């Protein structure tokens, strides 16, 4: 931002000495305190801070859990149980970490859907958005690796089913599968490498988060009306205004989080995962964690071949495409207006997209032997891709957007009639 100049003046000789060599205090003052932030951000914007908090919670609890966990196939299952029984505070650490994964995804989905509604991916925030999609992909990898570690039946069979997806890739599929599993079947080598990778991914995520925040601080925040910041009247310093608002949001978010941790710690899991992994017994149903269900439903809905591509590979293409397509959203959406608030045609399609996502989530949990599951699944897949490939590019041709406020201050003082 143009008017974003540093107000930092070292207050003593030591600070001045440090500032001349490593201007870290200046940097913190500029980016964590003075950073000019649009003053009209609503509570959907607190999810950025919530996500940063969740990452820290997951890393801290994870590092301590790793001190007590045994990544060996015959001991892993019991070691998780013993953490809960015999490690001081282990019961809470383990529940926070496993529930934390779910809460992390809940927050990231809200954060992404917020971006999709308010057009936060549009110029000049394309790289910011793409880094965000990359973080979500890394989170999915981390969550999958982590889910395998307790080495229950669902861990084992999820590892088998998900690694199998890679076997569908032509030519390199089989070697890739062996590399992932560390053998021809999921076993102790798989557990060892997944533990190693599970410890690695969060730190890669943290690094990409730094880039994500860097990319945020160059153009500054988008905001609910989607109008650029025009003057300093439109902004407030990040601290204390947004540190306080985010902190409030974080504490509120921790309430349902704590509820699940302390009152229903197993409700998001599956009872099969309290049976130790057994390669000889397939559980009656293999269901991924709830946050993978929409994408799992897309994978399963493609049960037909097209030309020379068999149904398995086609399913994988759609599955991967459903996430990779997010990278292209900044160029697929041709509307010049950022915020969905001023786009009357966009709004119903957007909310239908949200419902469609929830429907796919539900379908992913249901057995494909029920006749309407694959049928509705195909409808869901069509709408999912049509939203990005047809609706977002073509909608601006027909849409008459509502007049935008002249500035953020005006929108705050004289809200437009909705």
């Amino acid at each position, binding site marked *: 931002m143009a008017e974003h100049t540093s107000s930092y003046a070292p207050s003593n000789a030591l600070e001045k000495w440090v500032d001349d060599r490593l201007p870290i205090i200046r940097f913190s003052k500029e980016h964590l305190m003075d950073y000019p932030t649009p*003053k*009209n951000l*609503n*509570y*959907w914007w607190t999810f950025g801070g919530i996500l940063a908090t969740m990452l820290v919670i997951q890393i801290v609890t994870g590092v301590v859990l790793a001190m007590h966990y045994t990544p060996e196939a015959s001991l892993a299952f*019991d070691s998780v*149980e*013993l953490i*809960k*029984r015999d490690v001081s505070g282990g*019961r*809470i650490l383990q529940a926070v970490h496993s529930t934390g994964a779910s809460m992390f995804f809940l927050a990231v989905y809200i954060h992404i859907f917020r971006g999709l509604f308010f057009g936060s991916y549009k110029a000049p925030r394309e790289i910011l958005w793409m880094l965000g999609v990359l973080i979500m992909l890394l989170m999915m990898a981390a969550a999958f690796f982590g889910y395998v570690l307790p080495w229950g039946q669902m861990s084992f069979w999820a590892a088998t089913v998900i690694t199998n997806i890679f076997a569908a890739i032509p030519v390199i599929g089989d070697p890739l599968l062996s590399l992932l599993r560390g053998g021809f079947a999921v076993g102790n080598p798989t557990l060892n490498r997944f533990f190693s990778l599970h410890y690695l991914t969060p730190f890669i995520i943290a690094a990409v988060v730094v880039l994500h925040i860097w990319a945020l601080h160059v153009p500054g925040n988008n905001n*609910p*009306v989607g109008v650029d910041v025009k003057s300093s*009247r439109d902004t*407030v310093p990040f601290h*204390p*205004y947004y540190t*306080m*608002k985010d*902190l*409030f949001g974080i*504490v*509120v978010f*921790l*309430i349902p989080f*704590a*509820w*699940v*941790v*302390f*009152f*229903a*710690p*197993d*409700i998001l899991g599956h*009872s*099969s995962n*309290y*049976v130790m992994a057994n390669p000889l017994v397939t559980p*009656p*149903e293999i269901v991924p964690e709830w946050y993978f269900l929409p994408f799992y439903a897309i994978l399963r809905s493609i049960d037909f071949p097209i030309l020379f591509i068999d149904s398995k590979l086609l399913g994988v293409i759609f599955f991967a495409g459903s996430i990779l397509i997010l990278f292209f959203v900044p160029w697929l959406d041709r509307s010049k207006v950022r915020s969905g*608030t001023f786009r009357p045609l966009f709004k119903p399609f957007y909310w239908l997209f949200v419902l469609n996502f929830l429907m796919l989530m*539900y379908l992913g*949990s*249901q*057995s494909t*032997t*029920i006749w309407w599951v694959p049928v509705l699944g195909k409808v869901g897949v069509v709408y999912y891709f049509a939203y990005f490939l047809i609706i977002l590019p073509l909608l601006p041709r027909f849409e008459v957007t509502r007049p935008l406020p002249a500035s953020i*201050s005006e*929108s*705050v*003082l004289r*809200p*437009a*009639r*909705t």
Partner: protein
Amino acid sequence: MPGTKAQMNYTKTLAAVVLSGLLLAAAPVLADDAKPAAAAAPAATTTATPAATGDSSPAALPAGSVLVTEEPDIPLQSWSFSGPFGKYDQNQLRRGFQVFKEVCSNCHSAHLFAFRNLDEDGGPEYSAAQVKALAATYQVSDPTAKGGKRAALPSDYWPSPFATEQDARDANGGALPPDFSVLAKARGAERPLLSWMRDIIFAYQEGGPDYIHALLNGFHDQVPANIVNADGTPFKLPAGKYYNDIFPGHAIGMPPPLSDGLVKYAKGEDGSTVPETVEQYSHDVAAFMMWLSEPSLNQRKESGFRVIMFLILFAVIMWLVKRRIWSNVEGH
């Protein structure tokens, strides 16, 4: 604080989201109410297993017959430890332990269950001396002891009835009696999927004990006449198996383990008695198994209340501070 129009818009959106969530949560309640009517048409769409929805059409089956693959409903029980306020009933845990000790533990192991757990808070809470005396009556393997065996200490784990899995199978007609350590969490009652929100709010965690109670009460001497295979022929029990309503596939390797009067409960200090019936035993042992799976449930809920109360109070303070800080911003 008079909200701006834009803010009210988000409030409306939020309200819509919450409302639709509540509707989702309410749907299964309504569906449950509708169940008796639906039950008249057996095996129509409720079965999720491939065998049931395979080639045979349910219409070809004789009236009143039930497919062997159909999963029966598990009646939900009332447990002292259910819900956010629920706690274990110490006397029930002691009775359940007695059933486990005298009946179940002849075949079932519980390798994560240590004698010392019996005097820990929130459990059966025997005295340390009682636990020590009890442990001493059991022999555990110890390669460093003379003869490889010694009397157990409170720090020892409950000795398994069989040395190896193969021994256990050989003694039980090829079936392996599952370990009890976390068994109550490894089983569950089938829940309508969309009830998850209701289950989170009411902290429903008792699917395992519900299942165990139903299983222990689900034995029949004879296969009920209306149970049929997918091709319509009457279901026949394989040799050495027993018929159970709840067990998937109905053929269970475990003979009915409980019978009325099998375990003699001691009278209470006030002379009160507890019925010595299969129904009562199964309740007690299911509660005990839940405790085995989660020995610190009481403490978990107690700390949960402190944490939630703190967070709510903290949130209120944060909100007041936030409001005050924002009070000098135009439009707020």
